[in-house]
């Protein structure tokens, strides 16, 4: 037996079992009434006139009563069905025998056909079979009335006593068994449906776990990537500190240059993080590293038309631009209010695309050639060439510093 249903609705199998027991109880009462009637007809009125008929009818009553007794256990479904089927068969044979022995041809034929129909109800039970069984019961009733009207009068009591209860009981048993089977099938379907929904839930859970696993992998990758970036950044900071110390004459010179460089790297890092390390437009990058050295809006003119710089290139190009800006702020165009810096860019499509950036200062103080090449100049002239295979020309023209940068552009950027 199945456990109580999760949703609290009554178990269809249990309902089928209860129905079967109800029918069996009702059938039992009918059988008792039938047996009583049979004995009244047999002993009081008939007085053993046709002993063979009495034996057949008595046996039939006993068989159906036994069948009722046997099917009361609802758990043994296959056994119950077999018993019900046996009771039918014996009833059919008995009715046929009674008809032949009683020289009544029509009644038994009607009954036999009808019972054959009812027997069929043990197999799939449909409204048509139910209708047919009602017709058969009605036909039996007519035959009964017919025997009442025709003497000998005691014969109808005998028939009423044996045939009616056996017929009614077999119909009851058949109906109850059918209901029970339907209930079991329903329960099985329900079980299937529940299993299917469980499988579905399981599948969804599995999918969710997969999703989580993917997220976890991505996270692990991101953490490793972060570790990599932090270490590289620390290495860069250490190297910048080393080089700045080497090229600084005084402590204040060191701190000014070092902090300027670290600040520029930090601003670039922040902007890249906001853009999820996809890169920046050249205009954004210039604003980040050159912007802080502006005296007013007109100090720096940028004409870069949204040229995009990939994240790999941003750091080294940003550092070079930062050195140009600090140099201009110290000695060049950005050291006075009137000085101007014009920055422009264009894409040279001569075979492989190259990004050209032109830094041009004018209206500043007169320019002198630097006495020695510091780390800043090295960053401008060597770092981009080293890392990108680019080309940098830095000139200290009398009118102002001019720096021309040419970088190979990856196909995606433009």
């Amino acid at each position, binding site marked *: 037996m199945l456990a109580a249903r999760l949703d609290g609705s009554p178990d269809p199998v249990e309902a089928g079992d209860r129905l079967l027991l109800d029918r069996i109880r009702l059938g039992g009462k009918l059988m008792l009434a039938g047996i009583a009637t049979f004995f009244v007809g047999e002993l009081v009125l008939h007085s053993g006139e046709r002993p063979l008929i009495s034996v057949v009818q008595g046996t039939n009553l006993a068989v159906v009563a036994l069948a009722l007794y046997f099917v009361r256990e609802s758990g043994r479904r296959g056994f119950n069905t077999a018993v019900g089927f046996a009771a039918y068969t014996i009833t059919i044979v008995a009715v046929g025998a009674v008809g032949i022995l009683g020289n009544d041809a029509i009644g038994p034929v009607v009954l036999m056909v009808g019972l054959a129909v009812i027997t069929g109800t043990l197999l799939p039970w449909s409204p048509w079979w139910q209708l047919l069984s009602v017709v058969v019961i009605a036909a039996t009733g007519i035959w009964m009335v017919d025997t009442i009207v025709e003497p000998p009068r005691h014969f109808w009591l005998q028939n009423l006593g044996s045939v009616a209860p056996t017929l009614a009981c077999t119909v009851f048993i058949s109906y109850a068994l059918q209901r029970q089977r339907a209930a079991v099938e329903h329960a099985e379907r329900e079980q299937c449906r529940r299993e299917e929904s469980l499988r579905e839930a399981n599948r969804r859970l599995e999918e969710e776990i997969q999703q989580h696993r993917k997220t976890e992998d991505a996270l692990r990758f991101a953490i*490793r990537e972060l*570790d990599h970036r932090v270490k*590289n950044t620390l290495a*860069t900071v250490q*190297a910048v500190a080393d*080089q700045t110390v*080497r090229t600084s004459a005084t402590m204040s010179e060191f701190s000014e240059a070092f902090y300027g460089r670290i600040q520029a790297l930090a601003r670039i890092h922040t902007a890249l993080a906001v853009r999820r390390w996809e890169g920046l437009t050249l205009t954004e990058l210039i604003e980040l590293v050159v912007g802080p050295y502006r005296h007013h809006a007109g100090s720096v003119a940028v004409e870069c038309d949204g040229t995009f710089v990939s994240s790999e290139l941003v750091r080294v190009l940003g550092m070079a631009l930062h050195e140009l800006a600090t140099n201009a702020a110290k000695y060049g165009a950005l050291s006075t209010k009137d000085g101007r810096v014009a920055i422009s860019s264009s894409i040279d499509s001569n075979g492989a695309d190259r990004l050209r950036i032109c830094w041009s200062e004018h209206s500043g103080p007169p320019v002198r050639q630097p006495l020695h090449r510091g780390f800043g100049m090295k960053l401008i002239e060597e770092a981009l060439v080293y*890392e990108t295979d680019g080309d940098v020309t830095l000139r200290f023209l009398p009118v102002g510093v001019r720096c021309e940068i040419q970088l190979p552009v990856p196909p995606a950027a433009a």
Partner: protein
Amino acid sequence: MSTLSLRGARILIVEDNFVVADALRYLIDGYGGSVSAIVPSVQRAHEALDAGRVDVAVLDINLNGASVVPLADHLLARGIPFVFLSGYGGEELLPEHLRSHPRFDKPVEAERLVRALLQLTRRDPES
């Protein structure tokens, strides 16, 4: 610190970040070594190897997204010793046969690196 000397050793530095590579060059110069070249890629490293003698190499594992492993195998075949520099903590980027080579996390500790280079060029660090 002053007892360590890389005098006479020719060292190749393969590192894609110019600032880091340049700082390494100064570091090795400071210990008396001679840097044959700083190069950002495997291809440039081959050019540098063809151009002159190299006693020992310092290899960044990840060169702007490219692996340094083919170069390490080439050095192994030529019998030139090397050490790895790595921004990654784990060994997962290196194949099994290269994991026994000295590896230094960035940022690198100068003395440890110099000691490893000395050992590879078979110079007694205490002399």
